[in-house]
């Protein structure tokens, strides 16, 4: 009885905190998402905002596109970050380690907007990269490197690297070198060692890094919008458009919650597929 009371006493502030900071601000939006748009007309509750997502193909297609590209971004980021993390954690001299991490942090000293404009200056048709390619005779005609899906993914990968490398460095660091040597000694080749020893060991870091990168990409607005160009409708842009261009806050709120729910579902599915629990990943 006593213990129970104590439990609630300690839990109460935590719950209050969560309620105040996370739940309350969203309640307004949640209510809004179940209302129809016109306050003069029908003030009642409705699911129409949610239905529209599934009925109107461009909405769910945009979501699917966003999710697929975010997944691709996550996978590419992982494949690039793994060797980097491995190098930082195992190969680099201890003194070099901090320096390398700071190097990774460097892009974050400027705002995302500046970073994206930086890419635009480099990659545009009249940009720096084209200039040098033509100068060295590799191209005769400048090519537009912006406004392509590949460029957009590159931009997303670029701003996600750090969030993948940091958790990976910490798991790779905790890997006992003797395990790698033992596997080698028992007859394993490089690939087997990666797939059977290093990757399974790093699973928690891979998962937490992937969740962060996936969510960041899914929630990104600037990079897809500016680097992606004319074909690159991102789901966040659709939410923005509902709020800002169409003045349809109810629809925007519904999209927002759908984004939350669907991305949670995707992460849940990912965790199930790789046989992990969220608790393990967080710890």
């Amino acid at each position, binding site marked *: 009885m006593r213990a129970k009371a104590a439990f609630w006493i300690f839990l109460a502030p935590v719950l209050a905190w969560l309620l105040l900071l996370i739940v309350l601000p969203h309640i307004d939006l949640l209510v809004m998402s179940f209302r129809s748009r016109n306050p003069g007309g029908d003030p009642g509750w409705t699911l129409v905002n949610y239905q529209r997502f599934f009925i109107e193909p461009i909405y769910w297609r945009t979501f699917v596109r966003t999710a697929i590209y975010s997944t691709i971004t996550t996978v590419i980021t992982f494949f690039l970050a793994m060797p980097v993390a491995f190098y930082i954690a195992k190969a680099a001299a201890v003194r070099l380690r901090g320096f390398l991490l700071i190097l990774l942090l460097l892009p974050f000293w400027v705002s995302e907007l500046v970073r994206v404009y930086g890419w635009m200056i480099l990659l545009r048709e009249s940009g720096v990269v084209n200039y040098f390619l033509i100068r060295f005779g590799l191209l005769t005609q400048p090519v537009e490197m912006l406004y392509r899906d590949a460029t957009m993914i590159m931009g997303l990968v670029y701003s996600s690297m750090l969030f993948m490398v940091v958790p990976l460095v910490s798991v790779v660091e905790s890997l006992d070198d003797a395990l790698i*040597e*033992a596997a*080698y000694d*028992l007859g394993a080749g490089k690939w087997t060692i990666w797939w059977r020893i290093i990757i399974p060991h790093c699973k928690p870091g891979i998962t937490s890094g992937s969740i962060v990168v996936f969510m960041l990409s899914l929630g990104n607005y600037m990079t897809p919008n500016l680097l992606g160009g004319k074909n690159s409708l991102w789901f966040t842009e659709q939410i923005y458009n509902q709020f800002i261009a169409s003045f349809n806050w109810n629809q925007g709120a519904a999209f927002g919650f759908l984004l939350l729910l669907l991305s949670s579902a995707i992460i849940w599915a990912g965790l199930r597929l790789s046989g992990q629990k969220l608790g393990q990943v967080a710890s």
Partner: protein
Amino acid sequence: MDNDLSIRDLVKRFGGFTAVDHVDFDVPKGSFFSILGPSGCGKTTILRMVAGFEEPTSGIIEIRGKNMLGVAPNQRPVNLVFQHLALFPMMNVRENIAFGLKRRKVTGAEIQTRVDRILERVGLPGFGDKKIHQLSGGQKQRVAIARCLVLEPSVLLLDEPLGALDLKLRERMKVELKKLQNQVGTTFIYITHDQSEALVMSDQVAVMNKGRFEQIGTPQELYGQPNTPFVAGFVGDNNVWPGTVNEVRDGEAVMRTQDGVVFRARSRETLAPGDRVNLFLRPEAILIDPGEAMGYNSFEVAIRAVLFDGANSRLLTVTPTDLEILVTLPQNQLFAHLEPGRTITAGWRPEAGILFRSDG
């Protein structure tokens, strides 16, 4: 008899530091070979070169007559039990043991039977599905050994595998390891800094110091006829008693200790009168109250303490110049009356002590 492993003039340098210094040895097929030496003397470095993780600076490593130069670790017919075992925590016991077999593309059914058989062998039948963290220290030990033995290597390398265990378990595992080696007949190369492990288990022991082998021999040889003062001091307990040579005759030397006592003893070195020497004398070679037995060296010492340790009990005694001498205390009631403060007469046979020239 042919050799599973031959090492010729092996050298390993890390920068300017020589970790392994011109080492030669052969390990006969099916034998238990130990390398015994203090921490940092280069034992692990030798094993890592045999396993292929480290390139020798110079020298030859042959396994079953084949030169191993340039052969990758995963291609060598040797397996290594790591100092901290290095079991794969993400796999259960069965998967750990099956790991090497899978790499050799052994079929699933075959793997199953071989894993079960080796688990039986190491005394862990039915442990296949346990997680690594569910095992005790001794059980982990056996899994690590099973994981290597299942591959039937020409040579099994063990790097202080008992180091992490508590004393009791270590005693037991020592015996079990020896029994296991007898059963499977695989050649074992065993590294340790614990002389008792080496003596109990090995057919042959190499004593290593500062990158060099001081002596290779059976445990008995090392114990009874140490070649160097280092071996004499490192293998088994020894009293060290400094003195000067008085005369040399018939392969025996007569020495006078710093306390003025005169002893006869043997030496492996050619000594001359006036040489400064150390007498190495094992506690169990010293008899209390030897009586007037023929040819014994005898001396008087005062008892400072009785160190009771069951069958291994000793007397801590001191000579008049306050040099401490350990004397084995036989566990019969004859000596129950000995207590600190008393002076006793002690004696030993001249063959039991050995002289080495001291540098000082």
